[in-house]
């Protein structure tokens, strides 16, 4: 029995391969060898279903297994480099496998409905599955370089999916922005990996942990090393100051936003810091920077989210903000709280993105019927969808309550866990986190009110229908863990006592946030909103961060390129041409290039022999 269990767990290395196989399967259709749109989609669903089943069985088996299991396959040996494909199967990694395959399956099912009328479905499913495969690889990887490899591959897939509608210039721009912004973080991460490898002599997480226990590093060195390592997560998890790409990434299809830019890839940064926790622990200063980065991001993004009108952008900023919470927990040395929030957030944020997609999909159809031209993602064009799309509305409502942290939904438990950690370690951060919790409640309820309550504000909004079952079913399924995962998680894994004082404080914050939302948007606080307008100006402009980047880094890089190219053409090559012209002018026979080939060749041979003759005579003497 134990052997069977062990085998079941060890065979979990197959799980990432299911995604890769699904991607390969869709290749002939994507390349146009076979005609048709749907077969790769069905293939993807089958593979991902198998993957989910396998992960779930392995997870259940691992709960009874005595110790985590590892697999190691030699991969790269050269000189001092000795790297293996190391995989780790623990309840945590297998749980993540289950989560990722599960969400990916639901997103693919949902996409059947959402993308039904799209051209390029095989390409879509191929990349989506390839992405899932990379994410699964990252989850079970037990080696920093393999993690980095999967990390980069996810970045590639994210680039391709954000740019899925490549005809749209805004999508192309957003795709490039996402890739390059994260690349800046990844560059530093790679530097960090190289330095860490040189210093520690290994990149296996387990070995790194053992090394970190006894390592004697100069504090300054440890701080710099961990900070450049942290740059990677900052980019990938869209933390300040590299957060600018995530809201723009909403140019991609909505299911992609749900899977990649809410539930999985953006959480990879958190996951990496968790795995490198022993190394980060060497530098207390870095840890507090991690916590403060999280706090600034959480608060800033929540503030910006309060004035967004695009249904997806609100969710995007909310994701950035929630990831900030996780980094706060990591910074104060409570990775278990961060991981807990990562799990619950994955469920409710995926569900809300899919819910937003459901609304957008319906709005699109309505717009199609009326031949109107309106922004189908703008919440000001919606209103009163409650009665027309009940499933979407109810599930979205659960999500709103959950993310706001209302007892006893999932978000309450995980946010409480983080607040608990913060209260013990850093009172200032705790206060910021509480304020953010209030803001979260405010903007999420504002979103719900603008979208689902009141009366339809456009003709289109009045004629919507509930989405087909492929889209509604994933919403319903995800609603279950969005509501209950917190309770389960706390009772089965974390086993933490709920502190009444914190629960009370957070509930008060949520109540205040809800109160403002109701006051401003239901009780018609229009006059109030108008008077607040000057205050919201910096928020509308996203704190001017995008503009600053545009004018400094982006423009600077462009100018530097132009300058170098000019220098190369006019100075370097100009000098070369000048020299050759002078040379030609001096040598009568070589004046005309066309006539001089052979002679010139001879001249060079003769002159070199002469030079050598002189030199060697000198040398021999």
């Amino acid at each position, binding site marked *: 029995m134990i052997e069977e269990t062990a085998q079941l767990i060890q065979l979990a290395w197959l799980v990432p391969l299911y995604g890769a196989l699904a991607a390969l399967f869709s290749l002939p259709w994507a390349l146009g060898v076979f005609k048709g749109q749907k077969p790769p989609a069905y293939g993807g669903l089958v593979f991902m279903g198998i993957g989910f089943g396998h992960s779930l069985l392995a997870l259940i088996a691992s709960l009874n297994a005595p110790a985590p299991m590892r697999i190691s396959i*030699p991969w790269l*040996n050269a000189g001092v*480099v000795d790297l293996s494909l190391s995989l780790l199967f623990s309840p945590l990694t297998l749980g993540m496998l289950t989560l990722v395959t599960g969400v990916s399956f639901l997103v693919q099912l949902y996409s059947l409905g959402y993308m039904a009328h799209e051209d390029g479905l095989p390409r879509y499913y191929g990349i989506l599955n390839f992405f899932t495969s990379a994410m699964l690889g990252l989850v079970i990887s037990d080696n920093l370089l393999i993690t980095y*490899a999967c990390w980069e591959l996810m970045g590639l897939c994210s680039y391709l999916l954000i740019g899925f509608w490549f*005809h749209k210039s805004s999508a192309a*721009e957003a795709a490039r922005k996402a890739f*390059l912004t994260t690349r800046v973080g990844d560059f530093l991460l790679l530097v960090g990996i190289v330095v860490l490898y040189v210093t520690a002599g290994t990149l296996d997480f387990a070995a790194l942990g053992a090394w970190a226990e006894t390592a004697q590093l100069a504090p300054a060195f440890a701080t710099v090393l961990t900070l450049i390592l942290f740059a990677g997560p900052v980019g990938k998890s869209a933390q300040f100051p590299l957060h600018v790409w995530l809201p723009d990434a909403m140019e991609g299809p909505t299911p992609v936003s749900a899977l990649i830019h809410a539930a999985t890839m953006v959480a990879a940064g958190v996951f990496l810091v968790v795995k490198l926790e022993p190394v980060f622990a060497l530098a207390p200063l870095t840890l507090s920077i991690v916590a403060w980065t999280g706090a600034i991001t959480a608060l800033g993004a929540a503030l910006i989210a309060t004035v967004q009108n695009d249904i997806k952008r609100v969710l995007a900023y909310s994701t950035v903000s929630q990831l900030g919470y996780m980094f706060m927990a990591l910074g104060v040395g409570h990775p278990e709280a961060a991981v807990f929030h990562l799990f619950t957030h994955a469920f409710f944020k995926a569900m809300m993105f899919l819910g937003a997609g459901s609304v957008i999909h319906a709005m699109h159809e309505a717009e199609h019927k009326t031949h109107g031209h309106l922004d189908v993602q703008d919440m000001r064009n919606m209103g009163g969808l409650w009665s027309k799309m009940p499933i979407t509305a109810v599930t979205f409502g659960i999500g709103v309550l959950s993310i706001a942290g209302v007892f006893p939904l999932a978000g309450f438990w995980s946010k409480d866990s983080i607040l608990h950690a913060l209260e013990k370690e850093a009172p200032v951060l705790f206060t910021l986190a509480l304020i953010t919790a209030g803001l979260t409640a405010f903007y999420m309820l504002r979103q719900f009110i603008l979208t689902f309550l009141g009366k339809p504000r456009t003709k289109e909004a009045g004629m919507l229908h509930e989405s087909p079952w492929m889209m509604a079913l994933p919403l319903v399924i995800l609603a279950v863990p969005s509501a209950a995962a917190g309770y389960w998680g706390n009772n089965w894994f974390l086993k933490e006592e709920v502190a009444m004082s914190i629960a009370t404080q957070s509930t008060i914050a949520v109540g205040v946030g809800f109160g403002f939302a109701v006051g401003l948007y239901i009780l018609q606080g229009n006059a109030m909103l108008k008077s607040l307008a000057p205050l919201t100006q910096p928020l509308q402009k996203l704190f001017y961060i995008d503009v600053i980047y545009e004018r400094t880094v982006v423009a600077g890089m462009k100018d530097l*390129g132009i300058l170098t190219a000019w220098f190369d053409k006019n100075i*370097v090559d100009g000098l070369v041409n000048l020299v050759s012209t002078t040379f030609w002018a001096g040598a009568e026979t070589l004046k005309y290039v066309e006539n001089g080939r052979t002679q010139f060749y001879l001249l060079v041979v003769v002159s070199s022999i002469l030079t*050598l003759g002189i030199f060697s005579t000198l040398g021999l003497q």
Partner: protein
Amino acid sequence: MNFPILSAVVFFPALGALILALWPGEADHKVARGVALATAIGTLLLSLFLTLNFDFNSTQGQFTESFSWIHQLGITYSLTVDGISLPLVLLTAVLVVLSIFTSWQLKYRPRFYYSMILLLTCGVMGAFLARDLLLFFLFYELELIPLYFLIAIWGGERREYAGMKFLLYTLFSSVFLLVAFLSAYFVSGLNTFDITLLATADFSIPFQIFSLVMLTIGFGIKIPLVPFHTWLPDAHVEAPTAISVLLAGVLLKLGTYGILRFGVGLFPEAAQSLSWVLATLAAINVIYASLAALAQTDMKKMIAYSSIAHMGYVVLGIATLQETGLQGAVFQMISHGVISALLFMIVGLVYENAHTRDLGKLGGLFDRTKGLPMVGAFMVAAAMANAGMPGMSGFVAEFLVFRGAYEQFPIATVVCIFGTVLTAIYLLVLLQRAFFGTVPTELKQITKPTLRSYIPATILAFCMVGLGLFPNLMTGISAQSVAGLVTQMGTTQIAKVDR
């Protein structure tokens, strides 16, 4: 006497060239192509045979053939192959076959064209396999003439300027090489040009430094190192696709191979003291060429600058003089050969079918009906590989170089890693401008490439991913020879200290 396999690899292409030259009557392009392809495939099979019989556990040169040639001057005809030259021979053999595939439609003076390609192959193979300095020099010069003709006859509008520029630069570089080679001969007093013998010679440090500087300038022009690089973008822009493939894929490697084999191999102590110069030059190469690539509007010129930048990683690897870095350098030579060849092929496909390479005029090539979606897929893969995407060969090579170089040259290494960001920037600009968006209406009708024209790119893409996923295939070939080279450098050091 066993079958002289190395001579066969070198001269089989020349035989093909001879057959084409002596072909009775007019040969149309199909016949010429057929002969060339058969010869190239024959050469490839010979090099595969060589690989299969190669002993990967030996640090020595293998299949050595050595005959006294010009006895009085100590010039020998001697060829040998080791784990550093073998991958380059294989790369050359593969790329020559693929470049003939790429030239499938060529109809202008095909006999001359193909015989020049084959002669070029002979020169390159000879240079990689030669163990004698003057024999190397001979082959090195032999490769030059065909390449000049290939650019100057089959090139674009400014082909004569570009061809002449290439010729002058390379001849100029030859002078430095010849000075270094001849002075090594005279100063050593061993009356030989055989590098295994010369490696045992006792050169004074100043002389070593002088020779290494000569070699670095000479080979630096070939690599090319900034500021001797301006011939390359011109040559690439004017050369036909197949020739760009060979130029970027194989010919640039003669430069880095030369520095490694002759510079480091013969003058190890000078290499030790000048390694920081090499590392600095490498970093300058990476940053300067990448920045210059940023502002290019001609796709091919951008790729050419990219190719220059990425040769910098090879030089950085060589500068380490340690196993890890040198392994990385050899890996990067092959990886660069595959990736840049693929990039030039893709640019060629774009130019052939969209009739322009101007990034200001192109757009929307991902489009399924009006564009070139398959080409786009290849371009994404190649661009990502070039930017160091894991899972492809470039990442492994660059990681080995960085890991090897960081301890000795931390700043140069970090600068070089930053080069991967710059690479991503300009290639993403290229993708966005040429492939994203909509097809501009003023663009002429885009033709559809035949399936055959994808064959070379597909093969290269497989190599690129294969080496990225199973890097030990490559490191296993070069491991022993690189280790041998490092040991040899170490013993030279120790021997000197003993004296």
